[in-house]
């Protein structure tokens, strides 16, 4: 994702001399080509994120489009008030880019785990929040925020990354992207955890649970339409994020559903259980530790459907669920209504 980001930014820099990239002294190797090619459009502000963000706002107010770049929490939480007061309040064209969302830098320790950034950034008025799910979304997201007026936050994952989408994507800020159709479950994913969400959705479909999958590269503004449509069409919506369970993407979806009248799908949010990680490990290892891996998404869906059935089940329900399940954990389920 990081490599895709800088490749696209170089393309934009070539066309627009008012594009400025400021790094907080990070991006060794990665930013070199940009730096060499567009030295007048590159600033290393040093290890001083508050100043980096304030000066980005100042340059943006003077007509520049300024991308600030650093790792995880450094360009966001470290300089939160500069983003709020200097960039967002002034509607400055500052695009805050964090590489290493979630556990991408898992082995580096909690300082480098970015797991509250979405919640914090989306709480700021005038800030558009994006967390692309793969390199295709990243490419489109960089182009989109460049053109999008005002302050944006772009949360990226690892350096490389791979495409999760097959084929071209229809990318618009504020719109989710459908990957799979499904009638019973809809998985909503934001950010790089999309790869786990897709694995989980595939496993569920293989078990016979009709599961749709949507990537939400934009967390704010959230795609009301997709959420409400799914809420009316499926039994269960699962949100997946590599982020704390409080305040992030799942909360954004919950806020939409809270305003929907009548019967609609149940919402289950998957994310970190309001914890910091004091252990380290690879991204995959930590995802598994904290319950956000593909298998844990599957287990959560199965257990939720199971419990819905055991609480509300009727013979018709049992028939229905037995029809959609081909999963051993559900086979011996006795519906409460039949006892």
């Amino acid at each position, binding site marked *: 994702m990081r490599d895709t980001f800088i490749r696209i930014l170089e393309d934009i820099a070539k066309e627009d001399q008012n594009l400025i990239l400021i790094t907080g002294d990070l991006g060794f190797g990665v930013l070199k080509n940009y730096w060499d090619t567009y030295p*007048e459009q590159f*600033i290393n*502000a*040093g290890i*001083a994120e*508050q*100043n980096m*963000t*304030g*000066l*980005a*706002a*100042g*340059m*943006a*107010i*003077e*007509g*520049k489009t*300024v991308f600030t770049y650093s790792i995880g929490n450094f360009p966001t939480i470290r300089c939160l*008030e*500069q983003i709020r*007061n*200097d960039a967002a*309040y*002034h509607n400055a064209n500052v695009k805050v880019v964090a590489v290493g969302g979630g556990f991408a830098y898992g082995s580096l320790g909690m300082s480098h785990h970015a797991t509250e950034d979405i919640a914090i950034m989306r709480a700021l008025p005038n800030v558009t929040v994006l967390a692309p799910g793969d390199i295709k979304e990243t490419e489109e997201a960089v182009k989109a925020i460049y053109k999008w007026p005002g302050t944006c936050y772009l949360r990226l994952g690892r350096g490389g990354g791979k495409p999760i989408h097959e084929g071209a994507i229809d990318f618009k800020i504020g719109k989710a992207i459908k990957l799979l159709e499904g009638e019973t479950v809809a998985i909503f994913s934001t950010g790089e955890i999309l790869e786990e969400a897709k694995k989980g959705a595939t496993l569920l479909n293989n078990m016979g649970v009709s599961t749709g999958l949507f990537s939400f590269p934009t967390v704010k503004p959230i795609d009301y339409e997709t959420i409400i449509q799914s809420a009316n069409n499926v039994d269960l919506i699962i949100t997946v994020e590599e982020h704390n369970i409080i305040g992030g993407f799942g909360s954004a979806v919950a806020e939409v559903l809270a305003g929907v009248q009548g019967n609609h799908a149940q919402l289950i949010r998957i994310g970190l259980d309001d914890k910091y990680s004091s252990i380290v490990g690879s991204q995959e290892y930590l995802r598994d530790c904290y319950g956000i891996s593909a298998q844990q998404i599957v287990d959560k869906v199965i257990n939720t459907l199971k419990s819905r059935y055991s609480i509300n089940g009727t013979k018709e329900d049992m028939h229905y669920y037995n029809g959609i399940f081909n999963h051993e954990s559900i086979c011996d389920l006795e519906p409460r209504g039949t006892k």
Partner: protein
Amino acid sequence: MNSEELAWKIKRHGVDMTHISKGSHIGAILSVADIIAVLYSDILNYDPKNPNDDKRDRVILSKGHAGAALYAALAECGFFDVAELKTHYANGSRLSGHISHKGVPGVEFSTGSLGHGLSVGAGMALAAKKDNKAHRVYVILGDGECDEGSIWEAALFANHFKLFNLTVIIDHNKMQSLTFCEDTISKSPFADKWRAFGWNVIEVDGHNHSSLKESLQINSQNKKEQEAPTCIIAHTIKGKGISFMENNILWHYRTPQGEEYEAALRELEAIKPCEILS
């Protein structure tokens, strides 16, 4: 209007505004009034009829709590109606206690949380330098504000990038919120710190208009691409001009009411420049 007249009017408005609103920070308003007056009378290039003119000099009042002084100067210089100053702090007013640019012609940037203005000013100066624009950027800091680490981040940056078109003016009244700066977090030797950060440092009496004017004029001729930014340390007195407010920390927050308000007005009348007709 000359700078002495403007300074007096800023002080008079400041006392009235904090009286009407029962607001704070009259000490800081009186402290910075002469600096702002000299800037707007003698130094800055601006057009109140075209407040966003690209050629204008930029001013950021980083010590946003003294915003009433800037609002008063802007109103007196024709950016908006002087009568609006009475709405400072009021319900629905655009003139917030800490300076805000929203809907207020002439205010370049909103502040209030300390330690923000210098970075933003550095960004504006760097943008102007890159685009070969001739205007200057002036950032007014408080001395207490220099407790903030972000000031020193920006100070390093502005020197490294040789922002010759950036001028900091420090309202050095030696007091901050609770007590004297030196009894809070010592920044001595203050001027040497700025020098050590690579800045051109000029120390002046911040209430002497000809000294202020001279230092700012010398500075505005500084157009050499490789020159460092300039820091004018203006030695001031918190509460300047009203005897019982001067150097009295009480007047950081206290609002002039009753007999104190009347006494403040009497003292200001006594120092009214002869050019101002009642």
